């Protein structure tokens, strides 16, 4: 037998390979832990948001981020740093002004999109593993075209990070005066990680410098873009770390507020 050049002609078929995927590694592992991790977090957050209690520690001024800012008339007055505007109907979360935007910020985040398109929507579950759907139009039409609004939720997320920072600062001011406890460090750590996640956002990277054509004409923005690019590489890790710190912070505040544990105080 000899090999000869084959002249391409007309519409041709793909190689007839029966197996849907020939991958032999554990490609299903990453989507699986993503499903478990995200589902567990969403379940915890949902329960906590509609619990409507144990969100405020009076004696140390700790407010959980899940109730910040507390804007319904059901809120403990001291916990409402920005006023009360909504009726205390049980279906309305006490942080109704911020939670929807935080949810949308994370839902349209370029990392989370990858995570849930792969793990929940199976489109595709892993590289070179077939899509679980017969047809595909991506983010070209409604509703997924709305993913393009990520930038606006980023702006909201910046405002919300400011509010969370304010809460963390206010927590140093207890009814007995200035004080520091383990809860303060947890609140502070959470806020720092939230800022890191928010700033490392791809939209932020674009707004700060990515949209420029000539970096040389904007040295300050170029430098800022460099820092954000460094953080941006870690956007996935920060996305998971902040889920962890949010849940941990909330759980700590809930435990102290419910009296299950007492706060470890360093000063006052």
């Amino acid at each position: 037998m000899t090999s000869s050049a084959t002249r391409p002609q007309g519409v041709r078929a793909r190689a007839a390979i029966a197996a849907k995927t020939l991958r032999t590694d554990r490609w299903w592992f990453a989507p699986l832990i993503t499903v478990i991790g995200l589902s567990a977090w969403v379940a915890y957050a949902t329960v906590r948001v509609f619990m409507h209690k144990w969100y405020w520690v009076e004696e140390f001024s700790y407010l959980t981020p899940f109730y910040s800012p507390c804007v319904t008339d059901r809120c403990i007055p001291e916990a409402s740093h920005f006023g009360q505007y909504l009726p205390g109907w049980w279906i309305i979360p006490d942080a109704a002004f911020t939670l929807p935007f935080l949810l949308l910020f994370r839902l349209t985040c370029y990392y989370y999109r990858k995570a849930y398109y792969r793990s929940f929507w199976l489109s595709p579950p892993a590289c070179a593993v077939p899509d679980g759907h017969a047809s595909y139009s991506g983010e070209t039409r409604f509703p997924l075209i709305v993913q393009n609004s990520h930038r606006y939720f980023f702006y909201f997320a910046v405002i919300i990070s400011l509010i969370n920072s304010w809460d963390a600062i206010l927590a140093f001011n207890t009814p007995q005066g200035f004080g520091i406890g383990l809860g303060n460090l947890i609140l502070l750590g959470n806020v720092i990680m939230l800022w890191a996640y928010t700033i490392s956002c791809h939209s932020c990277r674009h707004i700060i410098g990515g949209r420029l054509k000539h970096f040389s004409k904007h040295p300050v923005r170029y430098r800022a873009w460099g820092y954000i690019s460094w953080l941006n590489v870690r956007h996935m890790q920060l996305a998971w770390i902040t889920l962890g710190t949010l849940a941990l912070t909330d759980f700590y505040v809930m435990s102290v507020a419910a009296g299950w544990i007492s706060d470890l105080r360093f000063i006052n």
Partner: protein
Amino acid sequence: MGTETSGAPGKPAAKRQFRIWRGDAEGGDLQDYMVEVNEGEVVLDVIHRLQATDAPDLACRWNCKAGKCGSCSMEINGMPKLGCMTRMSTFEENETITVTPLRTFPVIRDLVTDVSFNYEKARETPAFAPPTDLAPGDYRMQQVDVERSQEFRKCIECFLCQTVCHVIRDHDENKQAFSGPRYFIRAAELDMHPLDARTDRKDYAQTEQGLGFCNITKCCTEVCPEHIKITDNGIIPMKERVVDRRYDPLVWLGSKIFRRGQVPQTSVTSEHSPGAVRSSAAGGGVHSHAGGSHDAQAEVQAQQGVNWHREVPHPTAPAVDASGKLPLTELTFDRAAAPSPFGDDVTFPLPPEHLNFAHPTQDERNH
């Protein structure tokens, strides 16, 4: 690891189990082979040994064996990889290694696929367009400005990102509307280039290349042998640039109120690039590198004696194939030698009587 000794010449080494897809467009299947593997070898070495021993007619594309030509793209244990960059030491000793052709493209034979899809998409992408008043040789740019574009120039066009992308891998019907990650980074490369004057590359990426189909699941980045950050540095910045122009209500409102940035939103594939190479005379300028006249006034004077509207016979149209385009290669066309885009009856340099203008001394027509 895994072999008895080093690959000393003539010394028998461990045999490994291979399953290789054999066949063509009519059909085919996975066939088993036991092949000798020596220490330090890559999958492509084993394919070559198979060609030398059990399967002399096994078809496989390859070239440099150094991960720089992008020819030996294949799917190894289901993952798109370069055969020359996949070390045998990454597999278990008793592991069966399955090698198949790229799934997304039509197969020609065995491991060779027809990747014309990519060349068609490449041809549709508007070329680099420097500003009209800038002559070749006068390009000056700063390293920081061109750095982002340079990352994408590392692309070796192995098309692993194209074959792994589920938009066309699992949905062949999207091939018409979707250009694929390789051409998104081409668009990004040009849009970020400090000397590219086109302003419609974002619209082009969205409307013509199908950027919206991408759901950023990042498989292109995972398989890239050049480790180009295709998604983070190419596709997402392009998506953000599209948002700037199309989905930003503040920009939309601003453009309505101030009537700024009103660029006509037309299809860009059919038109010629506005910034494409033009003679320096078009800008009325005097140029040192383009080989033109140094004296603008003499030029203007000389032009007055020119007849710009000579009647000349029209050349025949270029020979195109059934799809109305020039063929990609000579092999895909119905005759030997590449056809001329100017029509086959036109030769260069044009004979003076075929110019559509007359030199002042020609035809004795001075005004």
